[in-house]
């Protein structure tokens, strides 16, 4: 196929449609033998938040100069963090679960990304109303500038894809990737100011400072809760770094996935 805008558009739409079918098939299968069924997709994000809220409120992780209730602060951050982490885990998940489909059909390279993106969108759509509910319960206003925080969501998702895509071919051969990926999530979670405010000094400050995910969490959170656009330069640098990492990861995935499938047991 010759590279042209029409062919690229055709490839993207084909990839999206293939991803849609991959997502739909897996979504049906996932909750087939459960009592709660599709309600698990609502229960899971809430259940994950509760212990963190309890501990964070106890140790007063929220910023001292901020009037925003900690519950709202933490849930908002967690929802944005989940966009990034769900994008990463679902990319690995679909790559693993659909390996037979990928090995039997010439799927578009964007099919797995599309399936993961649809999953991310669905989970965000189901969990974001909790922010509105909490804002109403705590009588804490959300700012109109928060609308622009939706523009950060694709960047967060792309960051997740960029992290997971190069690992998909390896994960088809070595299951260690799946076993160890959770630990990576834990490390990344606590190295970014998700459930706590970014400190002003100390080693954790420097870890947060140099972690690009920090700004991808802080910026939409402050836009929504405070109406401010903080750290604009670092945010733009983070976006550029995310796009570069994603591009390299996508190219590697495109070149190596077929070779990795040859070594499937």
């Amino acid at each position, binding site marked *: 196929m010759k590279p042209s805008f029409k062919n690229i558009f055709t490839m993207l739409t084909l990839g999206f449609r293939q991803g849609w079918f991959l997502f739909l098939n897996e979504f049906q299968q996932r909750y087939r033998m459960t009592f709660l069924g599709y309600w698990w997709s609502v229960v899971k994000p809430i259940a994950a938040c509760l212990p963190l809220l309890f501990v964070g409120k106890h140790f007063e992780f929220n910023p001292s100069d901020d009037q925003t209730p900690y519950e709202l602060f933490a849930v908002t951050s967690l929802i944005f963090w989940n966009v990034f982490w769900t994008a990463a885990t679902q990319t690995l998940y679909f790559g693993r679960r659909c390996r037979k*489909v990928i090995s039997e059909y*010439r799927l578009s390279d964007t099919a797995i990304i599309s399936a993961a993106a649809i999953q991310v969108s669905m989970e965000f759509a189901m969990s974001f109303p909790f922010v509105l509910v909490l804002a109403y319960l705590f009588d804490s206003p959300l700012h109109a500038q928060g609308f622009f925080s939706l523009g950060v969501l694709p960047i967060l998702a792309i960051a997740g894809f960029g992290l997971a895509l190069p690992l998909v071919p*390896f994960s088809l051969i070595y299951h260690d990737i799946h076993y160890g990926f959770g630990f990576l999530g834990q490390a990344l979670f606590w190295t970014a100011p998700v459930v706590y405010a970014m400190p002003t000094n100390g080693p954790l400050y420097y870890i947060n400072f140099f972690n690009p995910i920090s700004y991808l969490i802080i910026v939409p959170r402050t836009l929504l809760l405070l109406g401010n656009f903080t750290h604009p330069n670092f945010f733009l640098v983070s976006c550029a770094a995310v796009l570069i990492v994603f591009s390299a990861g996508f190219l590697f995935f495109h070149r190596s996935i077929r*070779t990795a499938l040859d070594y499937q*047991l």
Partner: protein
Amino acid sequence: MWICWNVFLTCSRIGGLTLSFAVEFENASKFQFNRFELGRKLGFLSLFRRSIAGNSASIDQFAVLDNAQLQIPSQSHFVILCTQRDAQVALTRILGGLTFLTSGALRVAGVTQIVSTKARMQRPLLSLRRHLNSLNTFIGLTRSQSQRNTQEVIELFKAQELENEKLVDIAPELIAKMNYFTTLFSPAEVLIFDDVYIHDFPEAHQKALVGKTAIYIACRAKFPTAVFDQGSILHEGKFLQTSSFPRLIENFENLTTLDQVVAASEQSLSFEENEDDVLIEEELSRPPVQRVLPRSVSVLSLAVLDADKKPANQIRTGDSCFFSVSYEIPNPPQVLPEVFVAVGIRTGTKPLIAAWSELIDRSFSDIPPKGQFTLSIPRMPLLPGIYGINCSVRTKEQVLDKICWDECFEVVEGDFYRTGPKEVVPVGVFCIDFDWKLDQTHEA
């Protein structure tokens, strides 16, 4: 890291051709791990050892292709017989674009599509229509193409009442057939069949193959040979080729049983270049095997022709047809006595029709070194089915050459009596000319 290294060592090109060939392998090599020997515990060591040894085959690998050359003409029906099952699977995946070559080049004129009864994305809770739509999407059709294709398959099987049923409630055989026709109806230019199926809808099958190249990759030699134009054998990484189908089947069976290749003559193996054949020559160093029958006349191929004298793999009952037997005399000049030609049509081992030239006192003298005998049947009497052919050239004293084909051609429903379509379907094997009258002069 090893995968990164391997990625940059892989060099395979898939692009458009300007020649008349649909598929071209050029110095193609593909080495594949024997999956059951590669254990996970030693996975890293095996990979490390392979990366040190380079891309040459090691103990853990077998050669699917080893500097292989092959050119498949456009719009032909080409069969590749593989002596190893793993090679068949791997070659299907290579031609389908699902895996890369280790080295060399594969050029394809157009898009390839593997036609198969299996659908990996099949889920039991999907409805039939959605399953077919998703299958069409996975093989790369646009939305409109996908819906059109799905509708066509559902109408072919008259399965309108089943389209919203879940797959778990539908017979697996029906789903498998619908998967097959869904992939068959795709707009790909090159269709790859991982086996030779006897299908339920021959007209739809034939219509789907018009203007396309069909490549059949099989492990067994039992299939209707009249369907195919040419063939090749994939043995130990190389494409071997013969100039006629009887030789192809014979060589394949010898390779799989005796591991030797039957020589076309008593000389060292070299396949003759024929204008009608694909332009590949392969010379083997194995010693030739003696044939049982010394051949002064050699039957090369049989072609089934329709009423317009065009090659056909299906003949309608009642239509005129021709059987064209190509021969050659290996060692001219040779004075031959008058020869007779015999074509026997059978089902299984049971003979049905004996079209022997001796029966009509037809013999042939002073035949040229190469030529064709043509048998004409004004009205095919056989009822629908798959039939085999025995063909022999003989003198009065001995048989000069005899070739047998199983399941060679197919007879489909036709109009033997020229009375138009009827609701009643004749049973039996033959149609014969007959008449009915009422005798009014007879008194009780």
